[in-house]
């Protein structure tokens, strides 16, 4: 994972005209009404939108937690829409690192065991996975917290553990759902710096958020409304799509 090689021409996620319908009681909810999106390797993408816009549904699709009602989804060239539950589990295990708003750490397991979990499901032997987990925890700055349980860690530290867990299987994408939603702004900034570093080192990051100043860390912003893509700045600034009251100074400074 060398820092300067940008494989921007390789497409990781290629979705075309996907829809997702839910049956809620008597009504059919059209959560996604035909979304097309391509995400390349080493992109830093934010998916934005108000609640009910379908961004959570899209995130579940991208994360292979759910399959579309119609449309095509290719992940690294493999058709995901027709995969079985166990095949999806295997994709999630090897290709996707999840970071949740509520951290979702196992409460009774220490940091090391939490980070090890994806490696257990990948079938890695105990010594190697312990080494890997410890290594990744050091990378996120938790050298001295390997054997702490989540309730012995601060919110920021917990999210770092969760990020380490997302990184440990060396996934194709990191999918973060409101990663700073449960953190104060200072800790949130630290986490965003961590994401920035990961991006700089070649990772592909997809942020799902409704906060513009969090989305501003990303290089590309996709806005959803009513199950459709409202705007996609395509990674070129896209100033016309930004909210007027919240211009984007951060976007310019990073490059």
């Amino acid at each position, binding site marked *: 994972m060398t820092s300067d090689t940008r494989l921007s021409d390789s497409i990781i996620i290629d979705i075309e005209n996907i829809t997702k319908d839910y049956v809620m009681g008597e009504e059919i909810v059209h959560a996604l009404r035909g979304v097309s999106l391509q995400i390349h390797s080493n992109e830093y993408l934010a998916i934005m939108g108000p609640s009910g816009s379908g961004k959570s549904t899209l995130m579940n699709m991208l994360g292979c937690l759910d399959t579309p009602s119609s449309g095509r989804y290719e992940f690294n060239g493999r058709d995901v829409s027709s995969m079985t539950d166990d095949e999806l589990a295997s994709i999630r295990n090897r290709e996707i690192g999840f970071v949740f708003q509520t951290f979702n750490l196992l409460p*009774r397991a220490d940091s090391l065991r939490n980070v090890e979990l994806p490696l257990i499901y990948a079938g890695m*032997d105990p010594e190697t996975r312990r080494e890997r987990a410890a290594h990744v925890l050091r990378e996120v700055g938790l050298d001295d917290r390997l054997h702490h349980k989540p309730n012995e860690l601060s919110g920021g530290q917990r999210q770092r553990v969760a990020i380490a867990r997302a990184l440990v299987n060396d996934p194709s994408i990191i999918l973060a759902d409101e990663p700073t939603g449960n953190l104060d702004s200072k800790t949130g900034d630290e986490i965003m710096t961590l994401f920035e570093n990961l991006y700089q080192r070649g990772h592909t990051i997809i942020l799902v958020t409704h906060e513009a100043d969090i989305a501003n860390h990303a290089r590309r912003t996709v806005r959803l409304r009513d199950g459709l893509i409202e705007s996609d700045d395509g990674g070129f600034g896209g100033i016309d799509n930004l909210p007027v009251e919240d211009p984007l100074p951060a976007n310019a400074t990073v490059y």
Partner: protein
Amino acid sequence: MKRFLYELSESWKIAVAQMRSNKTRSTLTALGVVIGIVAVTLMGTAIGGIQVGFDKSMAIFGDDVLYVSQWPWKRVDDWWNYRDRKKIKTEYAEPINRIIAATPNSNLVIAVPTSSLLRSVKNGQSEVSNVLIRGTVSDYLITSTFDFKEGRFFNDVESRGGANVCVIGYDVADALFPSESPIEKSVLINGQPFRVVGVISRQGTFLGLFSLDSIVVMPLPAFQKYFSAKSDSDVLVKVKDKTRLAEARDELTGVMRRVRGLPPEKKDDFSINEQQALKSTLDPIKNSIAIAGLFITGLSLFVGAIGIMNITFVSVKERTREIGTRKALGARRRTILLQFLIESASLCLLGGFIGLGVAYVMCTGIGQAFPSFPIQFSLGLVLVSMAVSILTGLFSGFAPAWSASRLDPVAALRYE
């Protein structure tokens, strides 16, 4: 395969952590299984004990001896057909033995007459009542299975002469001569003194109903002299080869018909009994007791299993988000299924271990309090109990584990 082992060890760790963090709940749930396993194990022990006692009691009759009696050893619906039969007389033994001796290649060895009734036996102030007094001949030893604690059986001369000698059972010796050897001492039966020449070693009880050690055996002429009235007589016939019992039986039937002088058109007016017939009469009773007992105690284990199932459902519900997280991180259906199955199975196994321990202590206690009750606590029983607990766990954990494995990861992650 390796991956499966890692998942297995991971599931085991989760199960242990889960039990430790919910101590009260786990203990209470396991208690249901403990009670179930204790009940089933104790019942198994009791059935094993009954079986051993049964076999031991049956052995008293000998598996190579035929009994010529008035009544068959089974329930009869037409008892009036048997009531008016002529009594079996001890005198039959002599002609039977003559016929056996005259028959080439006879399947029979020897016929021994016995005659018995119940009387009290005294020594000074001590008295034992309801003792089985049996008159027989010295050849009785051939048809019997007992050993002597001390002394000997009466000999041929004493037997024929009807000497006032006797052999006494363990219980009689114990009651009348608690602190001395009864050999060459006298006991009083019906006011008549009999000199003790031997003490039979302990025989135990017959099906736990009555003692086989409350017995006095004496020469037949002496018995007839003092107790002939109201006694019941049998003729015991030893068989040469117990694998050819049926032929021996047919032969003895023919012999008895000759002795009784029955014309061919008349039915037998005697019964020839054997241990096997008694066994086949009592076996169904014994088996239905065992099945009923195991079924009833099995119910308590079933209740325990329902407790485990319930708590596993609760556990799945509580940890829905955890299941969602695990699925997001790549846990497959099998992994989740395994996790909850192992959790319920190990809870049951824990209950099984404790239950077995409790049952063992209780068995030992019962064994010490009632030495006569045959207790059988075998390795087989331990293994069966362990297997039953694991199966109970898998059975009761399956439905909740299955529902957990089918959870939709999106819904599970969003579950509050």
